[in-house]
């Protein structure tokens, strides 16, 4: 990929300069040797238009020395100043690339030259450009030899390899989980909040008061709503068994149609199809606050024994949970909307936090898709736990012992480029 046409001249000048260098090593400060062993190449892993110049770090690289980079598109002359910087800066470790894609050496100056800044973008990828580095000290400048290179459009971001590996791992684990879930089922621990559901339904039956189940204001594409309908199935099955009553007010008509099916099925499975009534599910309002106001009214009139809030809730959580708590009902909530969790947590007896809601849905339904998604998430968490624990220990070890290349490897592995 590197179109380096300076090979021969480079060797020649190298020979020439090393002899000079050897002869006059303790030189007076006014004199500065020109830069040698300059190479130009294409910047890897990019779209093109950026060239990479490298040359060795020298003992003369003090802050008062300046390097100037010149670029030209012509056979001779036509130099444009592309960059200028103090000689003690810009080494190989300044380029942000991981260890597997880049050798970050502090013994080398590395400078990226963005050709697009000086030439039209269409002409920068492909043609050969010429470069030279001029060292400046005390207003005197010393040119290096001229090297040339062209840039190309690359095909792979090697620096993003860690991301690709992780993506492929997630891919494999997910499809493995799907096939396992379908054949043998997967283990998911029982969610503590589910015990509270039984207790709440039991109490409602004793008191002879109704149960409210609010499926949130989300639509059927949301994982939280899907999980909520599975939990609704389980709750209504228990309700049917205990011969208690349940009410499910809705904001989304599509969710309502799904919920109707779910409740009907649950009553059938519990052997009580006779107690199923169409008005268990009722549509209240399309509008968030009107919905909340109407449901608040229903709750404060009927004073239910238990209220479930499961699904996607927004600001109305505040209005609902407060009224519920003042009626003295047992309240069990579950949502993945973080901003609402504090209100549920303070006003309810039990709260399923975020993924616990999905897990409860998966646990109850054994739905292979929910299960495998959850399993893949668990896999991801495992990766994080192990990496954080091991990486933390190794990084501090490396830090204490000053093994810089070692700590760099750890840091690079967990960095997105």
């Amino acid at each position: 990929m590197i179109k380096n046409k300076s090979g021969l001249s480079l060797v020649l000048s190298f020979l020439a300069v090393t002899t000079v260098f050897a002869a006059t090593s303790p030189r007076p400060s006014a004199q500065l040797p020109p830069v040698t062993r300059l190479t130009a190449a294409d910047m890897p892993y990019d779209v093109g238009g950026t060239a990479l110049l490298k040359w060795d770090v020298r003992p003369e690289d003090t802050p008062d020395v300046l390097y100037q980079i010149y670029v030209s598109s012509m056979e001779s002359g036509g130099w444009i100043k592309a960059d200028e910087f103090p000689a003690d800066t810009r080494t190989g470790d300044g380029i942000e690339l991981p260890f597997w894609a880049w050798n970050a050496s502090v013994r080398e100056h590395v400078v990226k030259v963005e050709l697009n800044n000086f030439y039209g973008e269409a002409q920068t990828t492909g043609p050969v450009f010429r470069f030279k580095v001029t060292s400046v000290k005390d207003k005197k400048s010393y040119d290096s030899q001229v090297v040339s290179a062209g840039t190309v459009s690359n095909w792979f971001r090697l620096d993003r390899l860690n991301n690709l590996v992780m993506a492929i791992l997630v891919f494999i684990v997910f499809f493995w989980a799907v096939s396992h879930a379908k054949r043998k089922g997967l283990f998911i621990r029982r969610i503590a909040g589910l015990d509270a559901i039984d207790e709440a339904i039991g109490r409602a039956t004793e008191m002879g008061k109704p149960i409210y189940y609010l499926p949130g204001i989300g639509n059927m594409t949301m994982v939280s709503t899907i999980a909520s309908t599975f939990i609704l199935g389980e709750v209504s099955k228990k309700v049917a068994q205990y011969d208690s009553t349940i009410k499910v007010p809705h904001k989304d008509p599509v969710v309502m149609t799904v919920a109707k099916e779910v409740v009907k099925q649950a009553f059938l499975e519990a052997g009580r199809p006779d107690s199923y009534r169409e008005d268990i599910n009722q549509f209240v309002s399309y509008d968030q606050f009107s919905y909340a106001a109407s449901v608040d009214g229903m709750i404060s009139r009927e004073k239910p024994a238990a209220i479930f809030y499961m699904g996607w809730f927004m600001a109305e959580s505040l209005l609902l949970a407060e009224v519920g708590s003042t009626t003295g009902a047992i309240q069990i909530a579950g949502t993945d909307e973080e901003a609402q969790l504090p209100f549920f947590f303070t006003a309810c007896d039990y709260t399923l936090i975020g993924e616990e809601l999905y897990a409860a849905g998966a646990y109850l339904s054994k739905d292979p898709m929910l299960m495998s998604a959850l399993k893949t998430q668990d896999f991801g968490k495992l990766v994080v736990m192990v990496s954080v624990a091991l990486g933390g220990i190794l990084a501090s070890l490396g830090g204490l012992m000053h093994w810089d290349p070692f700590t760099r490897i750890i840091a690079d592995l967990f960095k997105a480029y």
Partner: protein
Amino acid sequence: MKLIKKQIPLAIVLVFGTLTLLTYFVPHKRSVNFLETMNKWENIVAAFAFFLGLINLFYSHYTKISRKADGWGYSIFVYIGFLAIAIPAYVSHGKNMDGSVLTWMGWAFKYIYNPLSATMFAVLAFYIVSTAYKSFRIRSLQAFVLFAAAMFLILGNVPLGQMIWDKLFGWTSYAISDIVDWIMHVPAIAGKRGIMIGIAIGVVVTALKIIFGIERQYLGKD
């Protein structure tokens, strides 16, 4: 028929999903050009998605009026509200300002849409106060920790709270802003990061399911 109804759409999602995904790993000019075309297309298609919401709202209130459902009279105001903005917008050719002078549309924005939109959520401030009084119950150690963190934040956020802290706990030599900064930058980060990582994998799995046509709820029923 199944081909054009189902298989081609699923092929579209597979092909466009995979190609767009690959642009992340392929820096080549062709990949950039492809992505640029996709960006422009996506931007236009997404614009039409707005009309779904518009038609949905108009239709649902139209049926309410035509069926004379409960409170159908209010539904008329949905159309009135729409026209109250749309007509001035048409008159002002979609411009808010004419130099430094409000146009009709700017006026409608400032005095109709702005107060409505702002007040809808300002109402919640009242419910926060009554929730704090009526249902914020410190029932357990967990709830107490939540309460304590909230307390530091509430006091630290306002100057009067900072003064009260200094009066009562000034002797500890910790300013409340130090404590708030610590809460926000140490334990809260751990909590949020723990939630975030699980959700990130969930999102990745969902994206995978969409690309491979496993997740197709959004297609609707046949």
